[in-house]
């Protein structure tokens, strides 16, 4: 076996074993015939599949593993779990977007009266037509992008939803890259501060990256086309309004203390959403056996990972704050609760996954799948 063939076979390991068992030999054959019509490069060390070939196999692996229409049940469930994680994650960011959009509309005097406390609106957003105003508008754009990405996804415009979700993500990545750049060139004292900032920021970036990756990977061409009913469009707006009111009440209530803080930052709100959805699904699982689905626990497990990272990051940043007190203990409870919550989700999903039939070979290749010569 040549080095090129060996390397290509290594790339094909991205594909599921059952798929490879049927397809590997003919894919290797097609690939090797395509490399200079069978002539391999003279220098074996240079002989490797190019990036576009690797990308095409990676995309195929993603499509096969996260099955869509016509996929074997097990792979379809994985695909639906990832797609549900994308929808839930996008919904969360859209709700936060609606809360932020409400605040922006008040700040610009479009909705209600500007916030009374603190600086005058012009000190924050600049005067009409000023550079500050333009910059503030540009910085606020991701807020709208999350809402639009969610709306487009539920309306069935996947490609546009993907573009907007990536656009919404870019400023976060850009800020993180700037932080990293600052740390690299900074004096030791500033570098420590920068590293702490990065440690805090990374989990929140992850909170946005995971749903976007789920959207990009799960909503491939074979994913079921689903245009949701119109009520799905108003969910972020209604939930955003409710969340804004609830947050306002919580923050205005005296005596709630630092124990509530870990629940009202974005990571805490996301964690809360997962707990509520998880509890609701557990109820359905116990009391309505006919509506059980492994997709829900799979999606929640996937989203639990970035949520726990935000709690761990918050715990470390609280440990520098002498006034955090009960907040630190609350964060420890959140982190500790993730383990039983995760285990419960595994316990709910595993038996259903085991009952699903194992994936068959690719279509047309089984015992009765065409005439073998």
């Amino acid at each position: 076996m040549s080095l090129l063939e060996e390397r290509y076979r290594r790339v094909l390991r991205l594909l599921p074993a059952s798929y490879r068992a049927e397809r590997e030999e003919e894919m290797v054959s097609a690939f090797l015939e395509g490399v200079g019509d069978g002539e391999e490069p003279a220098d074996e060390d240079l002989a490797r599949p190019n990036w576009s070939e690797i990308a095409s196999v990676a995309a195929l692996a993603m499509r096969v593993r996260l099955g869509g229409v016509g996929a074997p049940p097990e792979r379809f469930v994985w695909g639906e779990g990832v797609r549900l994680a994308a929808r839930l994650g996008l919904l969360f960011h859209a709700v936060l977007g609606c809360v932020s959009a409400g605040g922006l509309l008040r700040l610009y005097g479009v909705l209600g009266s500007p916030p009374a406390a603190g600086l005058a609106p012009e000190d924050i957003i600049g005067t009409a037509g000023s550079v500050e105003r333009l910059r503030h508008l540009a910085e606020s754009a991701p807020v709208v992008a999350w809402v639009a990405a969610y709306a487009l996804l539920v309306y069935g415009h996947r490609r546009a939803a993907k573009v907007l979700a990536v656009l919404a993500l870019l400023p976060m990545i850009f800020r993180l890259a700037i932080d990293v750049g600052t740390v690299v060139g900074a004096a030791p004292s500033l570098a420590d501060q920068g590293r702490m900032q990065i440690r805090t920021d990374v989990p929140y970036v992850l909170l946005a990256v995971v749903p976007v990756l789920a959207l990009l990977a799960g909503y491939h061409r074979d994913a079921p086309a689903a245009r949701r009913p119109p009520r799905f469009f108003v969910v972020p707006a209604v939930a955003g309004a409710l969340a804004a009111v609830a947050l306002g009440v919580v923050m205005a209530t005296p005596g709630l203390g630092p124990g509530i803080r870990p629940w009202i930052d974005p990571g805490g709100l996301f964690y809360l959403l997962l707990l509520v959805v998880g509890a609701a699904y557990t109820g359905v699982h116990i009391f309505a056996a006919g509506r059980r689905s492994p997709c829900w626990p799979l999606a929640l497990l996937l989203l639990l990972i970035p949520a726990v990272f935000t709690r761990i990051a918050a715990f470390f940043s609280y440990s520098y704050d002498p006034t955090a007190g009960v907040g630190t203990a609350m964060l420890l409870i959140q982190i500790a609760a993730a383990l039983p919550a995760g285990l419960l989700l595994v316990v709910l999903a595993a038996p259903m996954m085991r009952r699903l039939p194992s994936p068959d070979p690719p279509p047309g290749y089984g015992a009765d799948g065409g005439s073998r010569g």
Partner: protein
Amino acid sequence: MGSRVMTEPAFFVLTALVDEPRHGYGILRVAEELSAGRVRLKVGTLYGVLDRLVAEGLVELDHEEAYQGRLRRYYRLTEPGVDALEAEAARLASNVESARERLRARSRRPSTAEGTA
């Protein structure tokens, strides 16, 4: 292909199989020739397209053979595959005709460049 518009790679894969059954590399080569070098399918992309076409019953396995010690699987077009390709070709021809008609009308029109400049 259901109600969805056929993708360009699927169109060229079906077209490559019109005259005779072909194996993976044969399809890649003919698709490139038919598109005058524009469509260069990668192996992963080809098998993604073939999976979909086989699942939809537009293409099926014809036979397999060993060539220089390597496996070659040959695929053929099914009757529904012929129908789907004919429908797609008619749709594309209609688009081309619409564009040509408008271009002919434009060339017959007296130039308005001076008036609009």
